[in-house]
């Protein structure tokens, strides 16, 4: 772990990504302190105003401050990212551990079910699930969580199979340690590296998918300040008020870029072959 942190500190690109992510998290957590206005606060006298000292990112068609909405939007993105990835990673870890450790019939059953999920393009699967459950923040998180489960299952399963080959696992089996104990104490800690990389990349994927679903009107619903909702709202106005789309688009791109930068760095450190 110490060596890992030491290598991470030396990786400037990774640090840039990490600082960017930390900024988004801090902005999200301190949104009520940072945002000068409420996310849904309207002003009839400041409709579609360009960036100024008073409204640094301008205002939208309802006179809402775009900067404040972007700051609160960070909360939505982080919430979706963490909960959706939590669902996907949690189920993926469980199924991957069972599948990879026990193999045989249970592995076949789990992996064939995952193959079914892999048969759909991600966004289409998420769209279909949200369409059925109904568009809302909670359903968006559930849909993204379901979509991400197969990826985590596959990553965990593959790593468990290779970790299982180690002698300390066969020794533990030989001295009669129960399979559950082996999985918890010996297998899980040793599969964490690729799992954490996948979590980081999953976070950017979840934020992106939420923004896409909200953009299509099937994710977070207005007037909630999701970046995807803001981008969709700004489409009709973009020729007259380009700031209504440029800043939300910038927020999405910046966040995903930082997560990818950091995720790449983690992967390079944990798997130097790819560098």
């Amino acid at each position, binding site marked *: 772990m110490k060596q890992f942190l030491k290598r991470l500190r030396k990786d400037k690109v990774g640090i840039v990504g990490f600082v960017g992510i930390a900024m988004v998290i801090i902005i999200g957590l301190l949104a009520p302190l940072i945002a000068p206005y409420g996310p849904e606060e309207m002003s009839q006298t400041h409709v579609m105003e360009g960036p100024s000292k008073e409204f640094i990112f301008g205002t939208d068609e309802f006179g809402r401050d775009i900067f404040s909405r972007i700051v609160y939007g960070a909360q939505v993105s982080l919430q979706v990212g963490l909960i959706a990835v939590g669902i996907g990673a949690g189920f993926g870890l469980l199924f991957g551990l069972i599948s990879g450790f026990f193999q045989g019939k249970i592995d076949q059953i789990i992996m064939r079910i995952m193959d079914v999920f892999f048969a759909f393009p991600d966004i289409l699967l998420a769209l279909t699930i949200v369409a059925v459950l109904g568009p809302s923040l909670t359903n968006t998180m559930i849909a993204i969580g379901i979509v991400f489960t197969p990826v985590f299952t596959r990553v965990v399963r593959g790593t468990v199979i290779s970790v299982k080959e180690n002698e300390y696992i066969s020794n533990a089996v030989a001295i009669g340690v129960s399979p559950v104990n082996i999985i918890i104490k010996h297998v899980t800690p040793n599969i964490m590296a690729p799992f954490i990389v996948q979590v980081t990349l999953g976070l950017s994927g979840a934020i992106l998918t939420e923004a896409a679903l909200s953009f299509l009107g099937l994710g977070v619903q207005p007037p909630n300040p999701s970046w995807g909702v803001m981008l969709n709202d700004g489409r009709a106005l973009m020729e007259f008020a380009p700031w209504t789309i440029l800043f939300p688009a910038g927020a999405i*791109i910046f966040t995903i870029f930082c997560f990818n930068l950091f995720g790449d760095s983690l992967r390079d450190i944990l798997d130097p072959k790819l560098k």
Partner: protein
Amino acid sequence: MLTYITRRILMLIPVLFGVSVFIFIVMRIVPGDLAMTILGNNATPESLHQLREDFGLNLPLYVQYFNWMSGVLTGDFGQSMRTGQEVLPDILSRFKLTFELTLISAFISWIIAIPLGIIAAVKRNTNTDFGVRLISLLGVSVPNFALAIIIILVLSLAFSYSPPIEYVGFFENPLQNLEIMIIPAIVLGSSMAGAVMRMTRSSVLEILRQDFIRTIRAKGARERIVIFNHALRNAMIPILTIIGLQVGTLLGGTVIIEQIFSLPGLGQLVLTAINQRDFIVVQGAVLFIAFVFVFINLLVDVLYSYLDPRIKYK
């Protein structure tokens, strides 16, 4: 080769069966009454009963599934709950557009990504490499819908561009068709190019480190021969994997891009059907896209064995 293809097709049967069961179940777990969802709260009991009768919604679930699948297997995907039109002809006519968009986008991404990925690998750790890596990272970080909106904004401000109102098919007027398709295809292709560029770079790098490349160089082969005849051919397998996966992503991406550019493709059909709660159309179109996706992956697998005969399948 033929045995392998047959085996792969047979392996697809349980997956496709699972896909159909999954779509069917998802479409039936709509909270509340499906008929009520479609007709609204003001529907009379008679109209609700009629709708259930017409679409077999009052039959047991397994009978509904059996009826649907028997239809699908004979080319009958059912009728739209809104318009009463046959679903399959609509899917097929819209798929032409989606397929064309996917193909042009994939082609654009390859012509950008593969050469840049090779250049980055050959000029590893130089400014060129750094630049290509930055472009590829941006490529995977900029969502296609954000890129589409930004491009439309820039083009509308600079050239008074606006997305076309009417679609013209390729065989009606190829030039006008390309004019309509090129910008959506550039947007979709750019979002795919990032991932392909990264995979090309890392695969070529991996191969360039191998002993056989050193031997070929020691024998005096030209660098161009080393790269194109030996490194790239061997690096094509992981590149193909990512291309196969990305074509699936492209198919998904068309849902958003067709909506933004008002293109009447399969993606727009799905989205419109979702908004109108027309579940027969949604399940038919989603099943069709999943089938296409699975067959593209099959095609990629078959190409693997052609490119690398060492691959043996159990």
